[in-house]
């Protein structure tokens, strides 16, 4: 996997997530991409997951409409980035 591209995607996702979930007092640097995203210290719940689902569909053209897939994909920001990378239209992997 292309590490710099992944890192860029992760950085981009952090900014987007902070924005759409209105995570106050949180900076992109303060977000650990490997930490548990849902139900962790940030208080992210099922409604937030759905808001992120909309973002992923709108910005990356990827629909996530099953709870099973959602649970895996949103386990951390790193797993979300990996899923987007692998599933994005035109992705080579």
């Amino acid at each position, binding site marked *: 996997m292309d590490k710099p591209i992944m890192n860029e995607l992760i950085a981009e996702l952090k900014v987007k997530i902070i924005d759409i979930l209105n995570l106050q007092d949180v900076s992109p640097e303060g977000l650990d991409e490997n930490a548990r995203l849902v139900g962790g210290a*940030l208080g992210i719940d099922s409604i937030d997951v759905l808001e992120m689902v909309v973002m992923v569909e709108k910005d990356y053209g990827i629909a996530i409409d099953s709870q099973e897939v959602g649970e895996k994909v949103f386990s951390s920001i790193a797993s979300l980035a990996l899923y987007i990378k692998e599933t994005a239209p035109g992705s080579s992997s």
Partner: protein
Amino acid sequence: MAKRVYIAGVGIISPLGKGLTATEEALRDNRSAIMPLEIFALLHGEPLPVGQVRGLDEQASPPRSHRLAHIAAMQAMASCDQPPDAVILGNTTGGILTTEQLLRDNVDNKELYRYHGLNSVVEYIAKEIGCSGPALAVSTACSSGAVAIAMALAMLRSGKAKAVLAGGVDSLCRLTYFGFHSLQLVDREGCRPLDADRHGMAVAEGAALLLLTTDKPDNPLAELLGAGLSCDAYHPAAPHPEGRGALMAMQAALADAGLDAAAIDYISLHGTGTPENDLAESKAINRLFATPPPLSSIKGATGHSLAASGAIEAVVSAIAVAKNFLPANTGCQNPDPALGLTPLMQPTSQRTTAVLSNSFGFGGNNGCLVITKPDRFSQPVPGRVKPGLAIHGCSCLTGAGNTAATMSLLAQGVPVAGMAGLDSISANLPSHMVRRLKRLPRMTLSLAIGAHNDSACEAKPSSVFMGTGWGALSETYDFLTRLTDSREQFPSPTDFVGSVHNGPAGQAAIMFGATGANITISGGDYSFEQALLAADLLIGEGKESCLVLGADEGHQVLSPLLDPSIAPGTLLADGGGAFCLSRKTEGAQCLVRIPFYQRSATEGCINSLIEALGGVQTLKSKYALLLAGIPAAVREEGEGQLARFMEQSGLKAPVIRYRKFAGEFASASAVAAVMAVSFLASGKIPGPLVSGDAPALESNKNAILVLGLGRYLSAMEFSRP
């Protein structure tokens, strides 16, 4: 004397058909009426399956909800020549189907928005059937219909009414269609409650109304034996995973009916078909019933008609006991073994005496009803006349800020009208708690904390009664705007959850862990008064306290379109007031009661008001001040009523027209109520407000009257203990 409450008449219109006979036939056929959406066009994509009412005349006005409710009301009242004493209608969408289109077309003629408000539906029905008593719009999401019926039961038992028309209505609209879809709660294959492969609900529409009476009719369909309310106080949209609130509501309904679980021989499930709801409900049932009786959800046949569903299912429960007929769990092929329930796979004829009907909703709002064959069970124990309500703490928000800031300006006679600052509506709220909350829920939480802190109560309030004229306008507007801007592709699940009228009260329940009744009521300019009425009906005599509040937000686009009192150029104002109440007078700041609430267009209304206040002599010797609420839209009418009241009562007390100071917004009367409490506490009325010397509140003349004038006449009385 104990009062039995009979179901004297019913009206029903749903995707299954119009009227009791058509409904019963469809249920006997075990037929699903769920089909792809037709009533409005989509910009793209396949329409999702919904439950829609067929054959409703196409007409522009009034909106679809109003027409559905009207049809049900006419049926329910068909065999009765007397209007009921009150109408209580559960409703979550009002005229929004019409509003959505008007907003898309950029229509700014506010006359066309006059049927937007939830209260417009119930007031329309009350007018059509000639009811001059309270017309209350209950909005507790998907339990609204059941909660409205529970409130009617309390009103009938209290003796304040002998006949109440109660139920629920909702029409399909873009808000709910796209909203539930954005939450991934819609099953593309229809709706399969309790099925192992269930994937969600089918959004639907309909209306059902029950004429409930304490005088026994010739052939009552059934008896409403009990009702129970609770709140999960867990999450804005998801049910408590163990069904905690569901269990509490079922237990409360059984206790209220005086029945053991074993007496129930059918359960009409909430059974929406979402994985979470059905699982939580099954856990609650399996905890309450050693062996659950026959049970089914009809939502695989009707879809989920939201506020109407509790009332529709109450009618189906009445059919069950009247006809000894139990409907099937339509849509379920393979019952989910994880639920541990055995739903009725076929319509069944079986002797049925007592039915439990479940309704649960967003905000964790739960309402359960017990419906039985008439006169079959012993009469419920008559309740004593409850003592009055006592105020233990209060707070307000206005354009000036919090209570202290507001009262300090008012003391100088300076108006406090304006939009409450973001700082003041977010005061004391940690950022993680409010990151998803826009204006109204922030105000609500801030007011709730303020009222609780002002009280000496250690325990937090266990139930919540909230009045709001317009609900969460920011969330509603943002949801519809993003829906339109994204060409219906990316509606916001967060805004949808936030847009429901009972969202803010649900947030207050979560914050306080308030698992008792949680009622949001939307009565236009009388929303706070209606919340107080609801609290008076439902709070018990125990030590527990409740939170009663009224709040509305000003919205740059929607307020001028929707609120008839906001003309172009009117200063946008918002805010509200909150109170910690209980029936314990010890240590109370003051007492409150609401002795009068009636439509003003009836003959002799002013006289009835004077009588309800104890007559001319009492009134003159008691009230030191009158706070008059005259919304700008009805100024002439309201001033006329006020002049007649002053003349006929001979009251010489000073009058403050409080909207001049608090501003034009629906729940301004909640601010007036805080003014009354504050004046009573300080013992004096600020002179500048009444243009003269500060009149003192004397020991013998120590009550303040807050009148609501206009389409309805209401009276709240605040006095020292």
